[in-house]
């Protein structure tokens, strides 16, 4: 289960101002498949995610200690090319944000910046939109402003955008919690179809969703990584008391 680790976290500690948000996290994220991160609200799930693509750098007053190894190299090292890291690790946020351009340019933005697929841009965009499950709905209106899309469509657009730069990892921060049930189902289905090719980290606060889609599960509780296991083991026979309590709905 942990032989093929894509991301290895070693003694990761994060402080926001005076708050110790992530407490000594140690984990090995398996390559490919969906690893859910579950836990009560405010326990650091998003922070953990954002530390993987160093989006934490954007926040004010953040202190980070420890290591995160992606394919062997520590991403916090001073000479890390952050833009390259973020190309390899893509992200979906809870509320999808369109870029102020038309749909085509939204998906083309990433490849253009990183100078990918220069003469095959049209194909690349079509491919990404298809993998995101949005192509059919937008193929006739690629030049329309992205801002006009519905929330569910925007999230799939965000997925297409994330895919456009050929990532290896997809960080998903509660990507369906703001969507209506049908759109949520769409997004879930797309991610499930992608999990054989990508390492997907999926933060959710809905146990049912986690049970539905996970291959592996991480349980976080107030900044600590409490338990980790394959989905089957985790849900059937949780080892930690806190995990048991959470799964039974007694806490969080």
């Amino acid at each position: 289960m942990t032989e093929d680790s894509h991301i290895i976290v070693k003694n990761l500690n994060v402080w926001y101002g005076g708050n110790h948000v992530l407490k000594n996290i140690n984990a090995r994220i398996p390559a490919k498949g969906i690893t859910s991160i579950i836990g009560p609200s405010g326990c650091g799930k998003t922070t953990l995610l954002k530390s993987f693509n160093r989006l934490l750098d954007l926040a004010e007053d953040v202190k980070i200690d420890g290591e995160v190894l992606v394919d062997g190299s520590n991403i916090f090292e001073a000479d890390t090319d952050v833009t390259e890291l973020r190309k390899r690790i893509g992200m979906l946020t809870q509320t999808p944000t369109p870029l102020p351009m038309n749909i085509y340019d939204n998906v083309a933005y990433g490849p253009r910046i990183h100078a990918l697929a220069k003469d095959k841009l049209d194909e690349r965009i079509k491919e990404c939109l298809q993998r995101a499950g949005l192509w059919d709905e937008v193929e006739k209106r690629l030049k329309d402003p992205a801002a006009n899309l519905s929330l569910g469509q925007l999230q799939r657009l965000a997925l297409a955008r994330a895919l456009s730069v050929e990532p290896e990892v997809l960080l998903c921060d509660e990507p369906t919690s703001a969507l209506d049930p049908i759109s949520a189902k769409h997004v879930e289905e797309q991610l499930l179809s992608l999990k054989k090719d990508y390492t997907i980290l999926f933060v959710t606060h809905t146990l049912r969703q986690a049970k539905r889609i996970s291959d592996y599960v991480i349980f976080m509780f107030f900044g600590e990584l409490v338990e980790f296991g394959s989905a089957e083991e985790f849900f059937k026979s949780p080892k930690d008391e806190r995990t048991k309590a959470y799964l039974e709905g007694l806490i969080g």
Partner: protein
Amino acid sequence: MNRRRLEEQFFKVLMLTSLSIVLIALLTVFGIVVIRGAPALSWEMVTQTPQGGFYLGKEGGILNAIIGTMYLAAGATILSATISLPIALYLYEYAGIHKFASLIRRALDILCGVPSIVYGAFSFTIMLAIGARSSLLWGIITVTMLITPLMTSSIDELLKMVPERLREASMALGTTRIEYLLNIVTRQALPGILTAILLSFGRAAGDTAAVMLTAGYTDGIPHSLGDPVATLPLAVFFQLGSPIPEVQQRAYAAGIILLIMVLLISAISRFASMRLTKFVVK
């Protein structure tokens, strides 16, 4: 109870009256200029330069001022935009060191409030010191000094309204900060930026005090930056006091053209804003 109702009514009427006073005053401004200016407009007026001297010559029109204004305002606006945008973007993105940013903004505030006559006097002093003659170039430089703080402030305010989540969305794809600024921020703020630039153009075109002694004045149309240039406001100012009615007519014609220009700018900026907001992310 009645007293309170009366008070409410009284003040309501007072408020409406106040607003009406202003709107009526606006109307009279337009009215006067149109009444005096419209009869002065003719095909010759806008296609010919003054013949026989701008102050005393009876023939000709104000083409010199029209073209002069275009050159001056366009030059100043372009120059100003190339200065304002980098400053505003820098303040938005990099001047995170708070003290520095607020210092710059305070300096900008002061510069915005400096009367155009002071910029004119300052410029004139420099010109005297280096022996420069009043010309289109110096007019452009002076007006640029005038409108750059205004443009920078406006754009700065605009950029503050760009939603922060756009930054995350862009950075998560692996862009550098400058790429984010140039590709995303400018596009998001584009309608506002355009409006700011257009309004600055209007201000540049309409100013008198800053160009009075720095741009010179002439009957002709400048062929190079070193030539003196006439502008519409100067055309009004210098020709209004002439004893010769035809010259006065030219002043009024210039006045009405200025007004038309203001209206056009307002309409264009509104229109452009509307067309461009379709890409803007809420």
